[in-house]
């Protein structure tokens, strides 16, 4: 993915060019901030220069880097800054990442699909290199020496001979006269020259996070702002018939209750008072369309759609046909969805936790019936994302509530509201039919999936003959959306479990079996490395087992080995997870490991116990107490290894997830001979032989 985003020169701004950086780093009150900058500016003259849309250099040598993607904890503010600072030879300690507002000039701002580094790798490097060349040219002109006698380091230009130096900040006025170098003339560093890339930097916001200064979406405040919450139908797809706010009006701080498409919006002078008022509002609802439907019914109906399967080739001598199933999952971000909106004089400004400020912008514009050009979306830190922030329901709703109430408002979903009104990871039922010939070679692979329509079977990452991927749908109207690793959470559980079952059918070790069916060198290397690091052939104690699985996607490869032990009572303990990743150039190794750790925890939680269920048309869970997540007690250690590589960087965030649940279920089979084909595992009774 090359320069997918423009590097066109933006107007040189000498003067107060201030992004959101200051808000993000926790200075209170946006308006105060602008006032102080204005004053500063009048007294001191030139303040900063922005040679392209990605970089701004301030007189005090602070460097602002535009971050086009949303920070959800994956570390994008840090890693994109590293990439840019590397080519700019910038002083890391004076970097200030500034979140871009939603605007197509920044290219694709959808934070998903593990694409942030892949899409912006070339662009941000080039942006840094371009500005570095301009600074060098400005210094050369200033000193009257040829540019090739100069070098750059830590945001200074040095003249090697005289030991003269000048900071980037001191050059800002001089840079204004320098023509923008042609992108073609820019030579980027080769990996051996990297000083920043490849060395761990912890999140740039960490000092603010541990002192409580970091500004998350829910922390945003504007003087005079009011607080909103929403009341929704208890049933999926139910509509508001009527509401009565007589009792709510008696509560101090009540401002108003408004009918909105989702139900009733309640506005008060604090979040707590808004919750309190909402409790007092009586509502009547028109039933949703699936009042008689529950998870068990959906499961049975979807399974029955899989009855007919094509035949395997005639040379098949041994085969199986098995059904696998995964449930609905909520995103359950730590920070429930929320958004600030201020609609005034036909324009609207948003501060929020979206994963895509461009679609947030159009969602707000649509809700308000105004043009997108009248909406500005600013992105704040998000307490997790996992795909939830691709839906901008909370942004559109906040915008509408601001319009209806006439106040700037911050809308907060209660945890219960958040869990019950998510866009869930879809539930799906799968059937795999596969077999081997008389020599043990795979003859065919048929994978048919039934879901509400969005889940698709995809090819296993191995070289198999006769692959058929089929899908059938029945739509119940349960809202679904993208959830970390999307389709791969289901499909890899199924594919990598069924591959294991094939290995057992062929009576071949599951690791050897996988190697036998792939020529892909990168895939082979992660498999071989994980086997070596986990000592695959080491003898395990009785009632223990190990399982392996791999993943290829998002421009990267990974493999996991999980080891488990079952107690006499059939209690499962995950003893060990070993993960190997080949992601090409590893930009920020420590953070990559942290993301793999997090992905493993997600995958374990959802394999072991988390699920969303439906009963009589209602979502049955409402928080972490019943949509269970792992606690620190259940968190195994992760042994993590990265394959050194100079390939272009691949994705990370989603790569660490898909192989974990199949490796775990394969380990359970290895330990006790019980094959888990339905997640979460808590539904399967695990007996020790």
């Amino acid at each position: 993915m090359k320069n997918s985003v423009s590097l066109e020169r933006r107007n040189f701004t000498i003067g107060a060019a201030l992004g959101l950086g200051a808000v993000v780093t926790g200075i209170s009150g946006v308006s105060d901030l602008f006032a102080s900058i204005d004053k500063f500016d009048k007294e001191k003259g030139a303040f900063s220069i922005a040679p392209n849309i990605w970089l701004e250099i301030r007189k005090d040598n602070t460097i602002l880097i535009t971050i086009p993607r949303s920070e959800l904890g994956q570390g994008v503010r840090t890693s994109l800054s590293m990439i840019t600072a590397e080519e700019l030879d910038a002083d890391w300690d004076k970097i200030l990442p500034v979140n871009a507002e939603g605007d197509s000039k920044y290219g694709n701002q959808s934070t998903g699909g593990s694409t942030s580094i892949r899409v912006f790798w070339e662009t941000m490097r080039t942006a840094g290199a371009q500005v570095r060349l301009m600074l060098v040219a400005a210094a050369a002109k200033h000193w009257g020496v040829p540019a090739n006698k100069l070098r750059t380091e830590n945001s200074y230009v040095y003249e090697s001979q005289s030991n003269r130096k000048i900071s980037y900040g001191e050059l800002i006025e001089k840079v204004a006269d320098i023509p923008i170098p042609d992108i073609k003339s820019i030579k980027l560093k080769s990996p051996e020259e990297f000083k920043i890339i490849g060395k761990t930097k912890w999140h740039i916001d960490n000092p603010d996070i541990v002192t409580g200064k970091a500004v998350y979406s829910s922390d945003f405040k504007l003087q005079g702002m009011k607080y909103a919450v929403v009341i929704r139908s208890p049933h999926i797809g139910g509509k508001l018939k009527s509401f009565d706010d007589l009792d709510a009006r008696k509560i101090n701080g009540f401002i108003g209750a408004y009918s909105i498409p989702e139900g009733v919006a309640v506005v008060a002078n604090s979040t707590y008072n808004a919750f309190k008022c909402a409790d007092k509002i009586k509502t009547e609802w028109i039933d949703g369309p699936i009042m008689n439907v529950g998870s068990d019914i959906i499961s049975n109906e979807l399974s029955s759609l899989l009855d007919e399967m094509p035949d395997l080739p005639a040379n098949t001598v041994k085969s199986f046909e098995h059904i696998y199933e995964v449930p609905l999952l909520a995103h359950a971000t730590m920070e429930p969805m929320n958004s600030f909106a201020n609609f005034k004089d036909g324009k609207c400004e948003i501060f929020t936790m979206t994963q895509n400020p461009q679609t947030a912008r159009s969602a707000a514009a649509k809700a308000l019936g105004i043009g997108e050009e009248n909406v500005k979306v600013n992105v704040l830190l998000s307490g997790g994302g996992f795909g939830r922030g691709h839906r901008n329901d909370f942004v559109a709703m906040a915008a509408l509530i601001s319009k209806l109430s006439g106040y700037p408002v911050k809308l907060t979903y209660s945890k219960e509201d958040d869990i019950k009104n998510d866009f869930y990871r879809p539930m799906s039922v799968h059937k795999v039919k596969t077999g081997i010939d008389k020599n043990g070679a795979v003859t065919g692979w048929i994978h048919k999936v039934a879901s509400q329509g969005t889940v698709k079977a995809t090819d296993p990452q191995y070289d198999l003959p006769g692959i058929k991927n089929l899908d059938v749908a029945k739509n119940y109207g349960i809202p679904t959306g993208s959830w970390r690793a999307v389709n791969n959470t289901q499909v890899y559980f199924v594919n990598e479990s069924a591959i294991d079952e094939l290995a057992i059918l062929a009576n071949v070790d599951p690791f050897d079996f996988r190697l036998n069916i792939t020529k892909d060198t990168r895939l082979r290397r992660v498999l071989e490395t994980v086997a070596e690091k986990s000592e695959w052939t080491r003898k395990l104690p009785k009632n223990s087992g190990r399982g392996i699985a791999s993943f290829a996607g998002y421009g990267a490869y990974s493999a996991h080995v999980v080891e488990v032990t079952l107690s006499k009572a059939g209690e499962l303990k995950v003893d060990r997870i070993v993960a190997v990743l080949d992601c090409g150039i590893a930009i920020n190794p420590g953070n990559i490991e942290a993301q793999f750790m997090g992905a493993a925890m997600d995958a374990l939680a959802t394999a072991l116990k988390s699920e969303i269920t439906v009963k009589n048309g209602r979502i049955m869970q409402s928080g972490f107490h019943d949509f269970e997540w792992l606690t620190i007690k259940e968190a195994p250690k992760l042994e993590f290894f990265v394959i050194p590589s100079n390939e272009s960087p691949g994705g990370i965030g989603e790569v660490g997830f898909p192989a974990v649940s199949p490796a775990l279920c394969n380990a359970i089979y290895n330990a006790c001979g019980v094959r888990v084909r339905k997640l979460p595992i808590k539904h399967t009774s695990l007996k020790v032989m």
Partner: protein
Amino acid sequence: MRLNINSKYYEINSESDTPLLWVLRDELGLTGAKYGCGIGFCGTCAVLIDGKARRSCITPIGELSGKNMIITIEGLSENGLHKLQKAWLEIGVSQCGYCQPGQIITAVELLNENPNPSESEINDKMSGNICRCGTYNKIRQAIQIAAKE
């Protein structure tokens, strides 16, 4: 009523049934304690009240008075130099970071009671604090680093 928060007295206007969390966040603009569940289950809202980690989302201010010493993450140290904050920075515990103020506050109580906790004592104390990003291994490690200081 008056509350003593981070060694400063604040005149509070919210009604007495209001949980401390919302007084801190909405009335006083101290947003370090986070809303994660509102029912005392997740720990993101933890603050120290007289040295004990308490869930501010289920602590109505009517139960408190000016005599209680309330410490939020903002007041834990000047410049983030508490040994737990330093350990958190040293090994980069945070992913999204949203749960971390609550984790740190809970760890403060742990080290107050038990300056040298074993791994399982850490697990016991910290198991009521959820981290959706799965930073548990690093939380454990950071507490061990801080305990050694």
